[in-house]
Structures are given as structure tokens and as C-alpha cells.
């Protein structure tokens, strides 16, 4: 049986290559307090499904799609059984050391979901509009419009000073 080239990549390399980007996306999607949980859930789901990822897949787009889904779950507060407490003290969700732009985050939260997703996936995850269309369940044209509308709305929200 021949194994596709990408399957020979240990999952560790996927975490090393994309961990920081996924964290940025999680922090923008759910805020810094819950970002650690969203990050862990994203990589746990990805690890589970990894052997079935088709050859030639865009790994970054795949991870962001999972992160997006996990963030929606988390924001709804649904579908997640609380993880029983871990015995190891090292296993506590670590606090991110650097500060986020809280005003910007509040403005992002005020956007309609598709605009927020499009802005985050375009400007933080650097996905193409075609990929963003897939994540959001629409298409490239709609994703481009959502991103543009999202940026315009952010500008309005932020210029008011109290988003």
C-alpha cells in the first residue's frame, strides 16, 4: 500500500507549523480567556482526523475550518462536555502572556458572524476568499464582500470609540 506523501508528516510538525496561527485565530474568535480551550479542541479534532485527511489538502484551511467550528460550539456553550479536571498542575490552561487589543475584540464581537469570520480568516489566517467561502458555507464572492463589509463596520465601530 502506498502512503500519500503528506501522511508521512508526523502530526507534531503540523502543530509546530500552524500552532501560532491557530492561536491567533482562536483569540480573535473567542477571546484570550477561552482561546486555550479552543486551540486544544481544534488540534485534538485535527489529530483524530489526521490520517483521513486527503492528499494535497490545504492544512491551514483545514485547521482554520475546525477552529471556526470549535469557536461556534464554544460561543454557544453547547455540545462540549466539560473536561474532568486533570491531575497534573502543568495541565491548567496557560494564560497568554501578551495582551490582546480588547477594544478591537469587542468590535469584532459586534460584527455579524459571517463578517467576523471573513475578517479573521482573511487578515489573521491569511486564507484565500475561496477557502473562506468554504469555511463559512458560502463562496469566494460572498466571502470577499463579507470581509469588505466587516472591515467597513469595524472602522465605524472603532471610530465611535465605544464599540
Amino acid at each position, binding site marked *: 500500500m502506498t502512503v500519500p506523501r503528506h501522511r508521512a508528516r508526523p*502530526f507534531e510538525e503540523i502543530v509546530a507549523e500552524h500552532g*501560532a496561527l491557530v492561536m491567533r485565530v482562536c483569540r*480573535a474568535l473567542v477571546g484570550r480567556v477561552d482561546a486555550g480551550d479552543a486551540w486544544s479542541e481544534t488540534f485534538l479534532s485535527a489529530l483524530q482526523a489526521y490520517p483521513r485527511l486527503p492528499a494535497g489538502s490545504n492544512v491551514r484551511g483545514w485547521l482554520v475550518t475546525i477552529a471556526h467550528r470549535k469557536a461556534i460550539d464554544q460561543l454557544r456553550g453547547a455540545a462540549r462536555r466539560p473536561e474532568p479536571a486533570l491531575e497534573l498542575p502543568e495541565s491548567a490552561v496557560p494564560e*497568554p502572556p501578551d495582551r490582546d487589543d480588547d477594544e478591537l475584540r469587542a468590535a469584532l464581537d459586534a460584527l455579524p458572524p459571517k463578517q467576523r469570520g471573513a475578517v479573521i480568516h482573511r487578515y489573521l489566517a491569511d486564507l484565500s476568499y475561496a477557502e473562506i467561502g468554504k469555511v463559512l458555507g458560502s463562496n469566494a464572492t460572498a466571502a470577499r464582500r463579507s470581509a469588505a463589509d466587516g*472591515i467597513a463596520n*469595524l472602522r465605524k465601530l472603532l471610530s465611535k470609540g465605544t464599540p
Partner: protein
Amino acid sequence: MTADKQIVQRLARGFSSAAFDADGALRRRLATLAERRGVLDLTYRTVDSPFGPLLLAATPKGVVRVAFSGEDHDAVLSSLASEVSPRMLHTPRRLDEISRQLEEYFARKRRAFTVRMDLQLAHGFRRSVLLHLRDIPYGKTESYRAVAKAAGNPFAVRAAASACSHNPLPLVVPCHRVVRSDGTPGEYRGGPEAKRVLLAMEAAK
């Protein structure tokens, strides 16, 4: 448009992850949760040895691979990803005990390894050879001929030698205790010099 550009720049700045997981806590937590949920097929780490860094890898069944630094560790990891599973993380989980026992062994404070082993990388006759090798005690040697016979085929001397040189678990499965009939050490996955050093260490009182 300039205002929009400023917002895009502010987005990039606002959620910077420059210091992302600097202490490794997030990744340790990922490994803990992955193991608990049964989605972590392989763990690996390196440890120091008198022969340079050793790569150790384990499945839930036990230690599956030990690689000397002479083998390209990245290539070994890649082949483990293909032959065992790509669901692997760099973590000491499952490998604390073997790491400790190897350290004791090199310090001449241990003569046998008592960790669980996963021999899935060896098949057929090679596997029979490895099972027999585990019975050769510390400080003793056997010829390739004797090993072939003990593994069930006295004529398969070359196959027995090949099983030793492809041993996925050198040190832990002591293929270094198999020597040529004339008493010279013969080949070794860690290099002939490592084999000489190990045999001298085990022979010393």
C-alpha cells in the same frame, strides 16, 4: 481606504502570537488530552547517551523504536508516521520509564530492561530472533549461528544477522550481544564502535 488599512494592521498587531506557548504548557496539555481520548498513537522524545542523542518512540502498547544518532532522526520519524501512524506528538509521555532505565544502564546500575515493548515493526523470522535476543543475559554473547538455531532455523544465519541489524529496539532488545563466530563484534545499528563499547562495559566486573 487608509483607515481600512489601519484596521487591518491593528488586527495583525492586536492578536499577535509572538510568545505563543513559550513554556510549552499548551502542547503538554494537548498531549495529555490526546492520550486520554485515545487519539495519540505515537509519542517520541530524545535522550542523551554516551553515543549521542537517542530517539525513543512508544505506542500505547510499549516502546516501539530506539534510534541511534547515526540514523537520521527526521527520517526515522517520517517512516514511523508511515509505518505506524502519523498521529504522533513530541512528548515524554510513555517514555519516562525507558529513559530512566537507559540512564541507569549506561551508568552500569541496571542489567535488564523491564519496560513493555511493541514489536510491531518486526515480522516473521525477524520477530522470532528479537524474542530470543531478549533472553541473552547481560554480559553474555551468542553467535549469529546460535541465534538462528534458537529462533527456529539453524540455516538462516544471514537472516538472523539481518534481523539484528534491523532491530527496531537496539539496546532494549540486546542485539549487541550477538557476535561473529570468530569472536569479533560484527555490524551494529549504532556503529561497530558502539557495539565494542557496550560489550566491554557489560564484560567489566
